[in-house]
């Protein structure tokens, strides 16, 4: 029982796992490749979170503080695991800073990578300054600057949000639904309408997947209270007439072609497998599933078991995941580690 648990990645899942382990007096080491804890919500500067509406820096920041205050959690930032060996109860991980960590078990909470919109050039990202991603809009809101067109800092009067950018698209090898973008987009749409009541916000969709309870709180609310306009159309291209962005498509429900000028176009970017996954898979000796996320080997026994005994996975490393579920999985993986340890002792 003397060895700590190695947690790779200090985002919502990793923070939750560390907190759970600390609660029962189990030591852990968080190895985070970036220079601070918090994961995507902190590093990418998210604004208000779904579904609580709390600011990311308060909610996830609070989780970071809670973990940093625990004496049984050791945090190593700016570091990766470079080498890994051993068996359950007795692993050794070498770190990029030269140190080595002896660990009883590992929880991989390495998260995801935001889809890079440059890979859908027809939608203008990288060509026109005023084509931005949902992440950038989150940053505009969370920084307090407000939603402005990057080209000249003006308040947009017309904003188009394009859904499924980097999701559900065989053309670019991303067949999965990223799960959160519909909800995030309707949340952002409401934020924009609240800050800029004169701004018209359109959402272009293939299907709306504000799953579960998000239907009323985001999809319906954004339509009924915030007058966000939803149009069933996948946009063909985003161009510019020199002044405005021009969005072309077909409103499929009324069978009419549309060519509409916009001040700002927002890509609702999806969740890619972490770009480091091949390396993580190689180093830790764990399998990836067909899309490139980390494969979950056991769904009904040990929570978050990977293909290698003693190595667990939680959060969006396993596939597109909400923050809430990532946190829940982090806690559950910690529990799986504890029950794995009990099995080892009785064996």
């Amino acid at each position, binding site marked *: 029982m003397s060895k700590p648990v190695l947690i790779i990645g200090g985002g919502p899942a990793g923070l939750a796992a560390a907190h759970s382990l600390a609660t029962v007096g189990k030591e852990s080491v968080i190895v985070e490749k970036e220079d601070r804890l918090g994961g995507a919500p902190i590093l990418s500067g998210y604004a208000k979170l779904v579904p609580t509406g709390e600011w990311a820096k308060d909610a996830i920041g609070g989780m970071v503080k809670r973990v940093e205050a625990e004496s049984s959690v050791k945090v190593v930032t700016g570091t990766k695991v470079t080498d890994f060996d051993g068996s359950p109860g007795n692993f050794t991980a070498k770190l990029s800073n030269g140190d080595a960590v002896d660990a009883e078990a590992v929880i991989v909470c390495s998260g995801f990578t935001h889809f890079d919109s440059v890979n859908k050039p027809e939608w203008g990202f990288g060509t026109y300054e005023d084509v931005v991603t949902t992440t950038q809009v989150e940053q505009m809101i969370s920084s307090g600057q407000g939603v402005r067109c990057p080209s000249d800092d003006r308040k947009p009067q017309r904003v188009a949000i394009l859904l499924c950018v980097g999701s559900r698209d065989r053309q670019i090898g991303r067949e999965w639904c990223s799960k959160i973008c519909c909800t995030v987009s309707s949340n952002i749409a409401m934020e924009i309408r609240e800050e800029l009541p004169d701004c018209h916000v359109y959402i272009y969709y293939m299907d709306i997947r504000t799953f579960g309870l998000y239907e009323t709180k985001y999809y319906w609310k954004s339509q009924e209270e915030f007058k966000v306009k939803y149009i069933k159309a996948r946009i063909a291209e985003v161009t510019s007439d020199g002044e405005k962005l021009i969005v*072309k498509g*077909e409103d499929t429900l009324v*069978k009419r072609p549309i060519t509409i000028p916009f001040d700002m176009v927002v890509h609702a970017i999806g969740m890619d497998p972490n770009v480091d996954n091949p390396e993580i898979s190689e180093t830790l000796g764990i399998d990836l599933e067909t899309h490139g996320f980390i494969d979950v080997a056991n769904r009904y026994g040990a929570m978050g078991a990977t293909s290698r005994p003693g190595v667990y996975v939680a959060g969006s490393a396993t596939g597109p995941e909400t923050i809430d579920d990532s946190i829940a999985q982090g806690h559950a993986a910690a529990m799986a580690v504890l029950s794995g340890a009990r099995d080892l002792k009785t064996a």
Partner: protein
Amino acid sequence: MPIHEKSLIRPENLTTHEELTLDGVDVSGHWSTFIETRVVNDYNENLQEEIAALPGGEEIHRCWQCGSCTNACTVNAINEDFNPRYWIYLIRMGMESELLRDKDIIWQCVSCNKCTYACPRDVFPEGVMKATAHWLERKGHTEKSPSTHFDEVFTEQIVKTGKIEESRTMRRFFSRTGQALAQPWMIEMVKRMLRGLPIGLLTRMGLATLVAPKTNDWSKASAAIQEYIDEQHEKQAQALSLAELVETAKQDVAA
């Protein structure tokens, strides 16, 4: 209003009455325009399967109506009525009569394949357009299109000789599509060829025109290809229930 109800308000379904009183209410004149009810009872529930049985139509079931194909479409940019997404919808719903309204423009697909590269589900809309055009031909709704004539002339020649002799292809294509061979541009082209091409090449071309060169030992390959083509045609004819159609037509004539 769902797409499939749009057909209800075509001009021919709109009526007004000079003098009409219903339950004591005067509904005369165009202020009281009526939309006549139209019961759709001609669904062809096999339509999607029929299109899928023809080359190119195999993946039509994947479509989720995002509209990328229509958005990307070269022809749609010129003619708004050319709408692949809508036709895929009609086919999947089995709305044959609605589809037939557009039978004279469906074949106009130029096979630029922009839709193919836009489609997030790999439905291969260009192939579906081709399959639909062939479906219209084989069901007897449209005449064979020029491109079908060309494909046939081309294929027949390959099957017969194993080679393509261009002048023969041209002559037959022109004759089957009812065009005069002696087009001004054609005469000009031949004139320039006679003037510009080396004598040896011209002689070989001339000879080929006369004797129709054949690949050596071609008969076995020819038979195999023909057998495969016949097999495919038979399969497609079955999928499209062509035999039944012919039977019904015969009975109609007899009656």
